[in-house]
C-alpha cells in the first residue's frame, strides 16, 4: 500500500514538471495534459521542442506540429483554419496533416471549401437520435461469432505461450470471468532496462516464480531423516540467489531445522517420521524462492528496439512494484485485476482492447464503437459486471424483460413480493404486451406541426389545452361522406390541403 502511494506521488511530480515545460512552450494546459496522457515524458518533450523542423524533410507530424507556425506561414494558415472546427481533435489533426501534405494545392478558397466539406461530412456521419445503438452493437459482435474458431489454444504473437482466442475468449470477456483461462501479462520496461537483453533477462528471472528444482536437485535421505537440496552454483548465479537465502526460505517450513553446507542444504523435520519428511518435501517443492508465485513463466521478446516480457500468469500489483517495470505500458489480460489496481476506466479500456484484439486476430472487422458500448455497459456503474444473468441483464429495470431472459419463475415471484412496477419502457416488455417499442421510429413523438392556410375550410386546430391527442382529421375536401368505420385514420393523413 505504501509503495503504491509512493509511485503515485513520484509520477505526479514528474507530470507536473512536464506540464510546466509544455506550458512554458506556449501550449494551452488542456492540450498539455492530453499530451502527457499520450505518454510524453518530460525529456522527450524538451527534445522535441528544442529540435527545429528539418528543412525539406516532412516535419515530424504529431501533436506538436503547430509549434512550427513561426517558421512556415502556411502552417499558421492551416492552424488558424482548423483549430476551432467543431470536430474531434483526431480528425482535426488528420485534416491538418493532409492539408500540409498537399500544400501546393491549398489556396485559401480551396482550403475553406475543403474544410467546410469535411465538417459537413462529419455532421452527416453522426448517429441519428433514437437509434437503437445497443442492438446494433450486440448484433455486430454476435453475428461474426459463428465465424470464429473454437480452438481454445492457439499460438499468437509469442510462440511459446498459449493464449485463449476466438469465441471462447470473447465469451470470457463478456462473462467478466474473475480469472481468465490463460492469464497473460505484457511487461514493458523502463528505458534503462528495455534496450539491454541481459537486464531484461535478469528482470524476467526476478518476476518468474523460482522453485527449488529450478536451481538444484531435491532428494530425501531416509536414514538421516532429512531432505537434501543440492544447489547448482551455475543456476544459482544466473538467478542471483545465494545458498543462505534459499536456506532461509526453506527454514520457513514449520517444524524444521535447516543446515547449510556450501551448496548443500539439509532440512530436518522435527519429528523423525518418514511421513513428515515427505510432507516437507512437498512443501519445499511447491515453495517459491523468488519471484511472483502466480507467474509461472516469463518469455522475453524483442519488439523493435526494445525487449518486452510476456508472462504466463498474472499479478499486476506485484509486478508494478518491481523496479525497471514501465508502469505506464505494462498490462495484464485480467479485467478484474486491472479494475482493482488501475481503476474502472482502465478495466473498460482493457475490455475494448482485448475484444478488439481477439476479433482482429480472427480477421473480423468490427467497429470499435460497438465494442466500446459493450465495455461501457459492463463498467458504467463503477464495477465490472457480466453481460448476462448475474450482471447487466439481471439488473434491468423491467420485470418482464428479466423474466423473458432467464429464470423466469423466480423473477416473477420476487417481483410480486417486492411489489415491483414494470414501466414498460424497454423492448422486450413492449413486445410482450403487444405495443410499439419506444426506440427508433417508435420513439418519435412530434410528427408535424399543422398550420392552416388562410381561407381553408378546415376548422382551426384546437388549442393545446392538454387534451392528449388531436381530434380525428376533419372530413376530406370532397363531397363524399367520410368512411363511417374508420376511427383510427392515421394522424398524418392529409387534411384539407
Amino acid at each position, binding site marked *: 500500500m505504501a509503495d503504491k502511494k509512493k509511485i503515485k506521488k513520484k509520477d505526479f511530480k514528474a507530470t507536473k514538471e512536464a506540464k510546466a515545460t509544455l506550458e512554458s512552450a506556449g501550449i494551452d494546459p488542456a492540450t498539455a495534459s492530453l499530451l502527457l496522457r499520450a505518454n510524453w515524458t518530460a525529456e522527450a518533450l524538451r527534445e522535441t521542442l528544442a529540435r527545429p523542423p528539418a528543412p525539406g524533410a516532412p516535419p515530424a507530424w504529431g501533436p506538436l506540429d503547430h509549434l512550427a507556425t513561426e517558421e512556415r506561414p502556411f502552417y499558421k494558415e492551416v492552424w488558424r483554419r482548423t483549430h476551432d472546427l467543431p470536430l474531434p481533435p483526431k480528425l482535426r489533426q488528420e485534416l491538418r496533416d493532409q492539408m500540409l501534405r498537399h500544400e501546393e494545392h491549398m489556396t485559401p478558397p480551396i482550403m475553406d471549401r475543403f474544410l467546410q466539406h469535411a465538417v459537413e461530412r462529419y455532421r452527416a456521419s453522426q448517429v441519428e437520435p433514437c437509434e437503437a*445503438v445497443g442492438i446494433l452493437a450486440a448484433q455486430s459482435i454476435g453475428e461474426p461469432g459463428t465465424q470464429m474458431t473454437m480452438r481454445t489454444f492457439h499460438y499468437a504473437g509469442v510462440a511459446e505461450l498459449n493464449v485463449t482466442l476466438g*469465441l471462447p475468449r470473447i465469451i470470457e470477456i463478456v462473462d467478466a470471468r474473475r480469472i481468465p483461462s490463460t492469464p497473460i501479462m505484457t511487461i514493458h520496461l523502463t528505458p534503462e532496462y528495455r534496450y539491454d537483453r541481459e537486464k531484461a533477462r535478469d528482470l524476467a528471472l526476478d518476476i518468474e516464480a523460482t522453485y527449488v528444482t529450478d536451481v538444484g536437485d531435491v532428494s530425501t535421505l531416509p536414514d538421516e531423516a532429512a531432505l537434501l537440496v543440492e544447489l547448482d552454483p551455475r543456476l544459482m548465479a544466473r538467478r542471483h540467489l545465494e545458498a543462505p537465502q534459499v536456506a532461509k526460505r526453506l527454514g520457513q517450513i514449520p517444524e524444521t531445522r535447516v543446515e547449510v553446507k556450501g551448496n548443500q542444504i539439509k532440512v530436518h523435520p522435527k519429528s523423525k517420521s518418514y511421513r513428515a519428511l515427505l510432507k516437507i518435501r512437498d512443501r519445499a517443492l511447491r515453495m517459491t524462492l523468488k519471484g511472483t508465485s502466480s507467474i509461472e513463466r516469463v518469455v522475453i521478446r524483442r519488439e523493435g528496439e526494445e525487449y518486452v516480457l510476456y508472462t504466463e500468469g498474472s499479478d499486476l500489483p506485484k509486478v508494478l512494484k518491481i523496479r525497471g517495470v514501465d508502469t505506464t505500458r505494462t498490462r495484464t489480460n485480467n479485467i478484474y485485476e486491472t479494475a482493482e489496481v488501475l481503476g474502472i476506466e482502465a478495466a473498460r479500456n482493457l475490455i475494448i482492447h482485448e475484444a478488439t484484439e481477439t476479433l482482429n486476430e480472427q480477421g473480423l472487422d468490427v467497429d470499435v464503437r460497438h465494442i466500446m458500448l459493450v465495455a461501457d455497459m459492463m463498467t458504467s456503474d463503477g464495477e465490472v459486471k457480466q453481460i448476462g444473468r448475474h450482471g447487466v441483464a439481471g439488473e434491468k429495470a423491467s420485470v418482464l424483460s428479466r423474466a423473458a431472459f432467464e429464470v423466469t419463475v423466480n423473477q416473477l415471484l420476487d417481483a410480486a413480493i417486492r411489489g415491483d412496477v414494470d414501466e414498460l419502457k424497454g423492448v422486450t416488455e413492449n413486445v410482450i404486451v403487444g405495443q410499439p417499442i419506444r426506440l427508433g421510429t417508435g420513439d418519435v413523438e412530434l410528427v408535424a406541426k399543422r398550420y392552416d392556410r388562410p381561407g381553408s375550410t378546415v376548422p382551426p386546430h384546437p388549442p393545446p389545452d392538454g387534451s392528449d391527442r388531436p381530434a380525428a382529421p376533419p372530413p376530406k375536401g370532397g363531397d*363524399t361522406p367520410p368512411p363511417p368505420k374508420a376511427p383510427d385514420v392515421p394522424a398524418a393523413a392529409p387534411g384539407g390541403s
Partner: protein
Amino acid sequence: MTSPKRISSIRFGLLSPKEVRKMSVTRIITADTYDEDGFPIEMGLMDQRLGVVDPGLRCKTCGGRPGECPGHFGHVDLVAPVIHVGYARMVARVLQSTCRKCSRLMLDPEERAKFKEVVKANSTTQALTIDEILRDVAKDAMKKKQCPSCGEEQGEVRFEKPTAYFEDHVEYRKEGEKVGEHKLTPMDIRDRLERVPDEDLEVFGLNPRTARPEWAVLKVLPVPPVTTRPSITLESGQRSEDDLTHKLVDIIRINQRFQENKEAGAPQLIIEDLWELLQYHVTTFMDNEVSGIPPARHRSGRPLKTLSQRLKGKEGRFRGSLSGKRVNFSARTVISPDPGLSISEVGVPEEIARELTIPVNVTPRNLEEVRATVRRATKSEGANYVKRLDSRRVKITEKNAEELATQLEVGWKVDRQLRDGDTVLFNRQPSLHRMSIMSHTVRIIPGHHKTFRFNPAVCPPYNADFDGDEMNLHVPQTEEARAEAKILMSVQENILSPRFGGPIIGGIHDHISGLFLLTHGDRRLTSEGAVDILRKTNVPHLPPPEGKDEDGQPYWTGKQLFSLILPPTLSIRFKPEIAGYDETAQEVIVRNGVLEQGTIDEAAVGAFKGKILDKIVKEFGREEARRFLDNATQMSIRPIMRMGFSFGISDEDIPRDARAQIDEVIALAKSKVEKLIAASDAGELEPMPGRTLEETLEMKIMQELGRARDRAGNIAEKNLHPTNPGVIMAVSGARGSMLNLTQMAACVGQQSVRGERISRGYYKRTLPHFKQGDKGAESRGFIRASYKSGLNATEYFFHAIGGREGLVDTAVRTSQSGYLQRRLINALQDLEAKYDGTVRETRGIVVQFHYGEDGVDPAKSDYGKSVNVPRLLQNYVDILLEE
C-alpha cells in the same frame, strides 16, 4: 394503426384471499368435470361461468362466445392452509427473523435503518435479489436469543425443503440446551405472519401493500379459467383434459376427503397425512419440478406440465409465446438465384402472391381501380376479401365477384392480392443482424414456379445459399409499416454494414469471375459481342469502338464496356485481388468513369471488399450503387455465357515431371521426419525453451511436413496455367483458394485434431496398419496424395477424422455463439442514442456521454472513420489537376 391507448405500467403483487374471492365467479366444490351427457357440471371444474372453449356455448358470466370470453377465475376453499412453494424460503426467513410471540422483527433500530438503506438503494439497481436481502436480515435477527421488543426467548426455526418448518422446543429448554424440535403447521405459520406489522416488512424489502407474507400461505386457491386449460376432444369422442385440470381434480379430491375426515373427527395422524397430501398437490400444481418431492405424473408416466413449467424455458409462455409471436400475411419457401432481378427485388411465385394480401381502403380516387381488382376475383392480381361498411368480411369467389364489384362503394376495405412493385419484408433465419430482414420490391413470377428468387448479390447479408435454404416473406399491412420498410429497410439502404462501415452486399462467385474474364488483359469483342454483354444493363447506346483490328473490323474492349456502367465522374485507384497472386498485376485505375488499367475482381466489386462498390455507395449514393450492382451483376454473367467457364477434373492435371518433383519433395520431407525421430530417440534433440522433448519433436515434424506440403503446392501452382478456371476463381476471389487447388492437384497435407497430428486410436498406434510406436508421417495422418489421385485407406480414415472435428466444432460453435448473441442482445437492447447525443438505458442512466466518443454512426462511417480525409482531399486535388 397505432392504438392511442398504451399500457403505461404493470404492477406485480400477491393475491390476498379477499381478492381471490372477489374475482372468483364461483366456488368449485366438486372434482367432476362433465355429467353423463357431456355437459359441464355446475360448481365443477368446467363450470360454464369459468368461460367456454366449446363452440356453440356461451359463457355464463359474460355471455361471450369462445374466443370472445377471456375466461374467469373460480376458487377452492382449502380446508387447511398450505404453503406456496415459490415463497417457502421467504416464509422461512420471515419466521426466523420475527419473534415467536409478538411477531416483531428482531432487529435493533440501527440495524433496521441499515437494511432500509440497502432496500432503498437496491430498488433502482436490482443488484441484490430479494432472497439475498432476506438472508442477510435473517442472519442478523437470528443472532438475538431474546426478542428485543418483548423479551421472549427464541428458538431456532429450521426450514426443510420444500415446505416444512421446525422450531426448537423453547418451553422445555433447560439452560439453553437444545431438547428437540416440533413441526410448525401452516396454520401456526399463518398466524405468526399475520401479526408481523407492515413497518417491519419494509425492512425485508417486502411491499406490504402488494404482498403480505401470510398471503403466501394459501387459504383459498384460485382456479384458473377453462380457457387456460382447454380440454381437447379426441376423434374417438373421448375428452382429454389438460394437465392443470388433472392437478385441480387431485386438489379438490383431497380437499374433500380432508373435510370429511376432519368433520368425522379422524385421528390427528390421518389429518396430518391428508394435510401433507394437500400440500403436495398444491405444490405440484404450482411447480412440478421442485427438488425433494417426486413430480406428479400422468397415467402414462409423463410428468405433468403445471404452472411453472408453462412459463419456463424456450418454448414457455415468456420466450415462446410472448416474446415471439406468430404472424399472418407471411410465406415461406425454398429460395433460388435469379441474376435477372434487381438486387432490390424478390421474385414471388404466383401461387404465393394470390394468397398474400394488402388491405386497401376504398376511396373516390381508387374506387374504379379497386372495382377492377375485385372483378378479377382470385385470379392473378385480384382480391380475396372485401370488408363492407357493416364490417362484415366477405370472401370473393368466382361467383360473387361481379356482384361485389358492382356493390363496391367508398368506405369498404378490400384485401387485394400482392402485385408487382409492392414492398415486402424478406428474411432468412438465423436473423443475426439487421440485414437479415430487408425489404424488397415484389416481382411476381408467373407460372408454376414455387420458389422465391433474388439476385445472388444479396446472399451475403442473409448468409444464404441455394442448397435448399428457405426464406420467409412478410407483407406489411399499414402505410406506416410500408413507409418504414421502404425508407429504412430496403436493400440499397443496407449495402453498408453497420458492423464495419463497408459494403456487405456485392458481387459473388460468377459475378466476380465474369467481370474478371471481361476485364482481364486485353479482351476484345465484336459489335455483336459488345451488344450481348450490354444487353441486360441500362446502357442505352453502344459507344464508338475502341479501335480496329488488323482486318479492319471494329472492336470493343472489355474494360471499355465495364466503364460504361461506372458513374462518369468516378475516379479511384487500388490494388486488385490478383495482386496477391501475381505481383506484376497492374494497379486498377479508374479515371472519370473510365477503367484505364487493371482487372476487376473481388477487390473491386466483391461483397465486404469491393472498393469501387464502396466508393460508389459513399460518394454517389445508395440509388446509384443499386444501379451499379444491378448492371454489374447483369453484365458479369454474359462473358461467362459467351466464353464458357467450367471446371473439370482435367483442370487439376499437372505434368508428369511436376508430379515427380512433388514426390521428391515429399520423400525428402519424410526422410527428414525419420531423422528427427531417430535424433529424438537417441536423445540428441534439444528441447525448445518451455517445451518438453516430445512437444519439440512434434512441432518440428509438423513444421517439416507443413513445409513439404507448401513446396508441393508451389510446384503444382507453377504448373497450373493462369487461364485455368480454378486458378481464375481462386485469384479473382470468386471462390476457393490456391490451397484448395493444390490440395486437389498436388498434396492434401497433414490432418489434425486440436492442432496436433492424429495420435489416438489403437494401443500405441493410430490404425492397425502401422507398427506400434510409429511416429512417422503416414502413421500420424499425413496425406501425401492429392484429392485427384485419390486417398489410400489409411489416408481416407485420417481425412475423415480431421473432417469430423470440423463438423463437431461447427455444431458447438453455433450453439455457443447463439447464446452469446442472446445475452448481448438482452443486455444492450434498451440502449438508445438520445437527442443530446448520450446513450442511455430505460431508466435514463447514462451509459455513454457521447456515442462512441465521437457520435459517429458506424453505418454512415467509412470503415469506422467519420470522414475519409485523404479521399476527400484527393477529390479536390483531382478537380484542381483537371483545371
